């Protein structure tokens, strides 16, 4: 059964890759859902997450005697800190670049978003240079073999973290007061404001959460690949955007599903067609979805306009 094993192995590769896309896609989809802005700076916030994690890790005196649970505590602390820092960056971006343009024609904030993306890329370029930066692989990494298919702890980490993040986000959006405020703002900004919802704060929180998830993605991709590069967010951001559109933009479950699907499509293209065609296939899906099913697989959830 070598073919089946191969398929399963590629499925695992695809799911791990998709986990990263999914986490980034969540941020795209949340921001689009609430203010209909495609925040193209989001992919760079993801790379920024890797860079923040690197700087935080550099502050922690890791020795080879640090082991077991201590490492996991460190990992969780780094994830949370990187997420916090990215969240703050997200809020700052919204405050400085997007808020004034909230009622401007749609093209203005979009171009601003691309400008912010270039600014972030340049800052990272000045900060860590234009080479690949290696990321310390301090977490234990065992290979598990299950029915002839091998997978690493790192891959499990990626998938586990993205599933936890999605569950937490779903609970936040559907079970908490903030989530209700977010949904109300998404549905009708003016009416929500009349009901006493602080629109600015709600939108700022949306940006915070989206950017924090990108920060988490930045950390786990650093662990997964062992390297990072200041332009990684550009490609990853585009793929994650495709994932968000595929799942139905504005739809949280859709973004997750889209992320995993895009990852799997990439792995399968590499296996059964050729690696150089992966981007062609992924972006062809984007075009096909936009043409034939613009609301995505699970349907969009965006502001209702009278």
């Amino acid at each position, binding site marked *: 059964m*070598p073919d089946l094993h*191969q398929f399963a*192995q*590629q499925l695992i*590769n*695809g799911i*791990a*890759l998709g986990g990263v896309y999914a986490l980034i896609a969540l941020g795209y989809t949340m921001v689009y859902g609430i203010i*209909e802005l*495609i925040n*193209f700076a989001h992919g760079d916030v993801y790379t920024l997450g890797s860079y923040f994690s690197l700087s935080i890790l550099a502050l922690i005196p890791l020795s080879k005697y640090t082991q077991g649970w201590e490492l996991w505590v460190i990992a969780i602390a780094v994830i949370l800190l990187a997420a916090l820092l990215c969240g703050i960056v997200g809020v700052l971006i919204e405050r400085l670049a997007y808020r004034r343009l909230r009622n401007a024609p*749609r*093209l203005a904030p*979009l*171009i601003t978003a*691309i400008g912010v993306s*270039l600014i972030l890329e340049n800052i990272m*370029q000045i900060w860590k*240079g*234009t*080479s*690949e930066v*290696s990321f310390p*692989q301090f977490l234990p990494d065992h*290979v598990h073999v299950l029915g002839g298919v*091998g997978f*690493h702890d790192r891959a499990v980490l990626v998938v586990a973290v993205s599933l936890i993040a999605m569950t937490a986000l779903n609970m936040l959006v559907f079970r908490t007061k903030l989530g209700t405020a977010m949904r109300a703002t998404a549905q009708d900004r003016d009416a929500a404001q009349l009901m006493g919802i602080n629109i600015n704060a709600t939108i700022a929180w949306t940006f915070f959460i989206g950017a924090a998830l990108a920060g988490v993605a930045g950390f786990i991709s650093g662990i997964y*690949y*062992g*390297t990072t*590069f*200041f*332009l*990684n967010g*550009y*490609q*990853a951001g*585009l793929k994650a955007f495709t994932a968000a*559109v595929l799942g139905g*933009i504005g739809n949280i479950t859709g973004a997750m599903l889209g992320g995993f699907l895009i990852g799997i499509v*990439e*792995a*399968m*293209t*590499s*296996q059964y067609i*050729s*690696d*150089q065609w*992966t*981007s062609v296939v992924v972006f062809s899906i*984007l075009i096909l979805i*936009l*043409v034939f099913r*613009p*609301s995505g697989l699970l349907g*969009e959830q*965006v502001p209702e306009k009278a």
Partner: protein
Amino acid sequence: MRCYIIARCVSVLAVITLTEVSLAGCSGNAPSSTTGGSVVKIGSDLPVSGGDASDGVPTANGVKLAVIDANKRKLIPGYTVVASVVDDAVNGVHNPSQGAKNIQAFASDSAVLGVIGPFNSNVAKAEIPLSNSLGIALVSPANTNPDLTKGSLAQQLRTTNPNEITYFRVCTTDDIQGPAGADYAVQVVKLKRAYVLDDNETYGKGVADQWAAQFQKDGGTVLGHDHITKGQQDFHALLTRAASLSPDVVFYGGTTSTGGGLVRKQMADAGIGNIAYFGADGVRNEQFLTDAGNAANGSYATVATVNAAKIPAAQAFLKEYQAQFNQPVGSYSANGYVAAMTIIEAVASAMKDAGGTFPTRAQVLDQLRSGKVHHSIIGNFSFDKNGDTTNKIISIYGVRSGGWVFLSQKNYAR
């Protein structure tokens, strides 16, 4: 309506991507302007930032050392030689359009009599037509793609004056480097089953094709040949597919900056971390060791020139290099030195022939085309009618306990 908005966003993004590429081209350093007087300038166009810096900087150091030497030994009496070092990397990767801009800037500076560079063959492809039309000598320390000098493809690059050679190189070419590597893989390392990858660039694809062809000729099997994309980060799927064919070596044609080190690193994740990795001169650098980390061991790479450490005439150079820069000598440091020296010597003899006046670029080119023998620190050689060196030595290196070590070298001159 909504889908219209998204479609419009996508089209705007496409436009921005295009402008970004052209804007990025402007970020390189411009060479300094003419100072005139008693200065002879030698341009150096190499990738000296980002992932390519670990190749470009040691090579540029060789150029600088040649200039220091030339001034010390007063090779051009009455003139000071100055190296004008510029970068052809954009966003950390060698960039053909940046290289072309650099050549134009050099050509507009009348004190520049010749240019060292470039490092990467796709950059050379953009620069040779300019060198040819502007009539400025271009001497590469490291370009190995054969089509830059030989055959009809090379003829097409010399757009303005197809029969005038303005581009020369002091390293040998991939029609020798590729097969030499394959011979070593089969005959010495005893490898039999190869999976071949390349980065789809002029150099990477060229050397991969040459290596694969010879590997089969030597009795090995090529299980598959795939190409990676610039900027790609995830090679797990690609390598999983390769692993399923149970190769005993992965060949990578390309540079570290296009993914050479990352491929080696992720081979371990796909369960083939213990098999050999073979590359060519694009990966024999320190950045490869950084990117691949612990996985680097068991990698091999060819370099299309001699190992200077093995040549008595190069010992003084190596000592001076260490004293001056205090960092490891690169694969092509000595070639950078030699490339600069050929231009400096050409300027000196052109000046002598012109009775001590400042020579023209055409006079410098005539000297380089004369076919005279250069006694250099990498051996004696001359430029043939295509501009190629007669020196055809390939050296082979391997990674042992985290560092590149010299394994062997062979002279392919007939």
